[in-house]
């Protein structure tokens, strides 16, 4: 389980240090930058999980400009605008860059944390998950985002043992616990598109790295975690072919 890396574009030093201090104590690794050049350099050199952009930087709407530049370079990192302006016009302008959400100044600490959750949810199109209840998680292509007390943490997808269909959505079982993903299994498979996850049953997706034993005759897979997964005939052939197992 890792903390999220956050880039903060804020030209006011007082506010920047306030946010940095607060978020650091709430489980975020914050990199504050003062202008668009610094921000672009940081984005180039590091992988950030989320970005907070103040719209007005030194009197210019550079926050919007940075968002536009990111879109041009196909950088898809969830970002949110931080603004004191509640005017519709600046919002219309900002809206065109498709931010994950907005955070209006003045804001309190809860609102800041909530907005970060919203940003992650919106970015992966899984709204009302981590912000709604602690049993939910947001699934990304490489990380699972889970709520840990007040903050959001990320877990690499490799740590997933298996994914099971639960009604409309999916249950994700990993070392860190069980989480509800508000996506269908088909969508989950699509999102992961990772060869270590293989469908073994209509309702199950298994991380092959976590498989301990396979009982072909009993149609059963036993994982390291001792979880028993049903193995359906339909998926056996492709499974064996992919893993070079001789039946």
């Amino acid at each position: 389980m890792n903390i999220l890396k956050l880039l903060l574009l804020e030209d006011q030093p007082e506010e920047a240090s306030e946010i940095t201090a607060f978020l650091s104590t709430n489980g975020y690794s914050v990199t504050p930058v003062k202008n668009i050049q610094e921000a672009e350099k940081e984005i180039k050199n590091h992988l950030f999980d989320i970005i907070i952009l103040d719209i007005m930087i030194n009197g210019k709407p550079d926050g919007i400009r940075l968002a536009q530049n990111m879109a041009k370079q196909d950088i898809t990192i969830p970002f949110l605008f931080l603004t004191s302006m509640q005017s519709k016009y600046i919002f219309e302008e900002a809206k065109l860059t498709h931010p994950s959400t907005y955070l209006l100044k003045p804001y309190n600490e809860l609102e800041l944390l909530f907005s970060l959750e919203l940003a992650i949810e919106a970015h992966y199109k899984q709204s009302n998950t981590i912000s709604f209840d602690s049993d939910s998680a947001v699934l990304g292509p490489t990380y699972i985002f889970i709520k840990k007390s007040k903050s959001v943490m990320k877990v690499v997808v490799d740590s997933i043992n298996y994914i099971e269909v639960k009604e409309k959505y999916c249950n994700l079982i990993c070392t860190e616990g069980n989480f509800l993903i508000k996506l269908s299994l088909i969508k989950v498979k699509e999102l992961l598109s990772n060869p270590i996850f293989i469908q073994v049953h209509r309702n199950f997706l298994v991380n092959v790295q976590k498989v301990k034993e396979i009982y072909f005759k009993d149609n059963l897979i036993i994982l390291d975690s001792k979880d028993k997964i049903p193995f359906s005939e339909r998926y056996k052939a492709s499974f064996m072919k992919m893993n070079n197992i001789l039946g």
Partner: protein
Amino acid sequence: MRVFVILYIAIVTNTISSQEFPKTDIEILYTKGKRVCDRSKANSFCKAFLFYKTKVYDSCYIYSSKAFLKTSSQEEKDILNYIQGVSAIEKKLFKKALQNITALSGHNDFMSLKNLKLAEINLLLKNYDKAILYYTAWENNSATTPKKLKKDAYHNLGLSYLHKKEYTNAHNYFSKELKLINSKDTIELITTKMDLANVYYNQYKDDEAIPLFTEAYQLAQTFSDIDLKLLTTKNMAVVEKNRKKYKESVDYYIEYGKWKDSLWNRDKIWELTERDKQFAIAQKEQKIALQDERLKRQQLQKNGLLIGGLFLILFTLLLGYLYRQKATKNKLITQQKEELNTVNATKDYLFSVVSHDLRSPIHTLRKQHQKLMTQIAQKDLLAIEKTTNTAITVTENTYNLVNNILHWSLEQSDQLFFKKEAYPLQSLIAQTVNDFKGLAVAKQITLLTSIDTPILVETDKESLKIVLRNIIDNAIKYTPERGTIHITSGVHNTSQCVIAIVDTGVGISAEILSKIKTLGSITKDRVDRSAGIGLGLILCHTLIKKNNGILEMNSELGLGTTTKILLPIANT
């Protein structure tokens, strides 16, 4: 000097004069024709015959030719030959006439007519010998010939003899003709007498000729025909000259000249009349042309009027369109004016809020700061703390007020960013309550939040927070120290959730409460400060309404106030 001879050839026409004999040749012909026509119903024949009877010889000639092609009966052929022959004579086609008449069969009914016609044609062709031959043949069998034809035949025969200079015969036949002439028929009488006189005169029988000439002259004098007068007078002049009675001759010549003049006059008059007629026609034509021109002009006028009318209609339509456009514009202007009035009212309201509600807290702050100055000088730390706390409270309230002014003005000018989405209700409440924790602690008020179940609410989160902030702020403001404010949330019904803010404050008087209750129907153009309701509540009502929610307030004076907000639950 030779006397002028009138070569008057009587041509037999189909005039009926059937007093003497019940059946003359012509009548027989008519009867036969009718019979054939009734029997055969041959169209061309009937037509030809009809045209013959009505003396339309052109058509008769043509239709009889057609009829020839269809007929084979001798009788019909005879009739057709006869009528076509007569038509040919009329059209001066003598050779054709000769053919037709010669082709007539020797039937008794046609014998005398055939001879008569042949004689006539020969006379017209100046074959006098042959004419005499045929006439003589006819005379031997002339019982069935009508009187008029007979008379004409005698005349023609006499004429033939005259040409042959056989005066005795000529005299005989003219005399015969004279006998047949009705004494009332002056023209015939004069002509025949002249012919007879000519016969005598040519034989130098002046004693017999001259009385006849004189008689003819005298008869002509009583008669109106100028041509006859001219002729008889000239004959008299020639006769008198020949017997050397020059004085009389000259008189006759003078008279002749007079008649000639009158004839010329008559011709002239006729010509003049003709010219007049032509002139009249020309005039008429001119009139017609004029009329045409007028008609044309009228047509033109009509067209002009039509086009004018059309233009008028178009113009009217255009005017109507412009008028409507203007009306629409006016309506828009009125609407805009109303909007402007509303905005202006809002502005006035905000000004009044700014000037009154902001003035007093800032004034308080100023006083607090002055107080602090003295307290700092006195180094009275306890007093400083108290004053500062008051200042913080005032600042806090003023800040809220300014926020409300901002939101209200943004909302009124439709500039507030507003987007309804599904949000976790408890999180929004927690975020809002978070701001009041410090204040509640300072006032020793217990701020409880109990969230029933996780609920997703359909709302614009910023506007809901503004509402919650206002209500919680009010609750804290009107709840005395050590009081309790309880915030709960839960499901109201299948489509709505509820947020309740219950305080143990001073409560609101029934009077003000009723005013608050009417706020639901308050529109932005009916902002009335005299109602005693602050901007905050008006803003709350407006925003909750915009979120499709309901704001309810219940209070009991001295016991506290309960505010309920109903909002739609998001569909998941």
